[in-house]
């Protein structure tokens, strides 16, 4: 009897949450969840954006480093044009809508004779249809590797096109996502200054844009022996 009475009193004193308390706690839970979702979304987006920028940044740096390495070790630069330009005779640049930028040079002096041979020539060209930068070279093991080249053979856009058609010439991808390229050579046939090449690159990838501007000076310039 006494126990029943005690239980009844305890049940009467027990109370649930008021409606206002429930509403406030629900609101706080919603606010907290909303904040967590917002922070997670912002973090994810920030990470993706940072990742894209970082990827483009590394691509730019890597391409620039390769251009410096190739050009600095060159002996003589014959051709350098920007997009929409061509060179029909050495040193003369004219407009050519649609043409890709190119730099053609005597990349190495293999047997120290100041004579250019086919396997010592390098061509870097901007392929605008694929937005890529490619390096064309003939392997030293090719049967025609020792074919003699002269200054004029590396100094015009026509010569660049002909070089790409030389049997055995291989292309190698230097960079992708390159939408605009410009090469310019200074001090050709100069006896005071060393030859240098300016390059301007524009990379675009997934709404990210990055530009690169460099100047590569030939470390051991040599006037080709055309005799």
């Amino acid at each position, binding site marked *: 009897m006494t126990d029943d009475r005690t239980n009844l009193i305890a049940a009467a004193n027990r109370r649930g949450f008021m409606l206002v308390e429930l509403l406030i706690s629900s609101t706080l839970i919603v606010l907290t969840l909303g904040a967590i979702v917002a922070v997670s979304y912002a973090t994810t987006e920030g990470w993706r954006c940072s990742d894209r*920028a970082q990827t483009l940044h590394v691509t*730019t*740096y890597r391409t620039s480093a390769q251009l410096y390495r190739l050009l600095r070790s060159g002996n003589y630069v014959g051709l350098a044009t920007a997009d929409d330009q061509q060179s029909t005779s050495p040193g003369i640049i004219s407009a050519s809508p649609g043409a890709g930028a190119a730099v053609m040079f005597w990349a190495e002096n293999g047997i120290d004779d100041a004579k250019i041979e086919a396997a010592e020539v390098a061509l870097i060209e901007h392929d605008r249809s694929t937005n890529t930068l490619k390096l064309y070279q003939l392997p030293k093991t090719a049967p025609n590797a020792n074919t003699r080249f002269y200054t004029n053979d590396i100094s015009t856009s026509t010569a660049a096109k002909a070089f790409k058609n030389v049997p055995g010439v291989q292309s190698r991808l230097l960079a992708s996502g390159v939408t605009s390229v410009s090469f310019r050579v200074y001090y050709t046939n*100069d006896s*005071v200054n060393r030859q240098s090449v300016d390059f301007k690159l524009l990379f675009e990838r997934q709404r990210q844009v990055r*530009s690169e501007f460099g100047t*590569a000076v030939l470390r051991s310039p040599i*006037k080709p022996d055309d005799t």
Partner: protein
Amino acid sequence: MAAAILSASVTAVMGPIWASYRQTQVMQQSTAAASLARQLLDEIIAKPLADPTTGDISHGPDATQLTRGQYKLVGDYNGYSDTTSVLTELDGSAVTWNSGGIYTRTVKIAYRATPAGSEAASGDFALVTVSVKAPGGDVVTAQRLVSNFPRLLLKPMP
């Protein structure tokens, strides 16, 4: 109480995220600054240290050298300064800089009598220093020692 806990939590979460973003930004700006320094250094070392005819050296551009396209000697670059907002090639054509923010480049040419010697008024060596200030305020410095000896300048090899 709940609001205080919430704000503290948000602050705790955002702190590392901001630090990570800032770190990435500093790294990218430092690389871009190094690239700009490398460009100017290579441009400078294409020039002779001393005039090949008179042997004179330069401590900065003369009154007729208004742009760096008119510089002839390494020393003409002493005191040179530019920014990426008006960046140009040697021939004056504009360079569009899309890599974020404005970078400022300055050049100092310090002559030396010996490669490891102290700075002198003239000498057969010069330490070329290019400093690039990034938008975030960090400064990247690149140096190269140039010397005054006859070079192989587009001459046929013997």
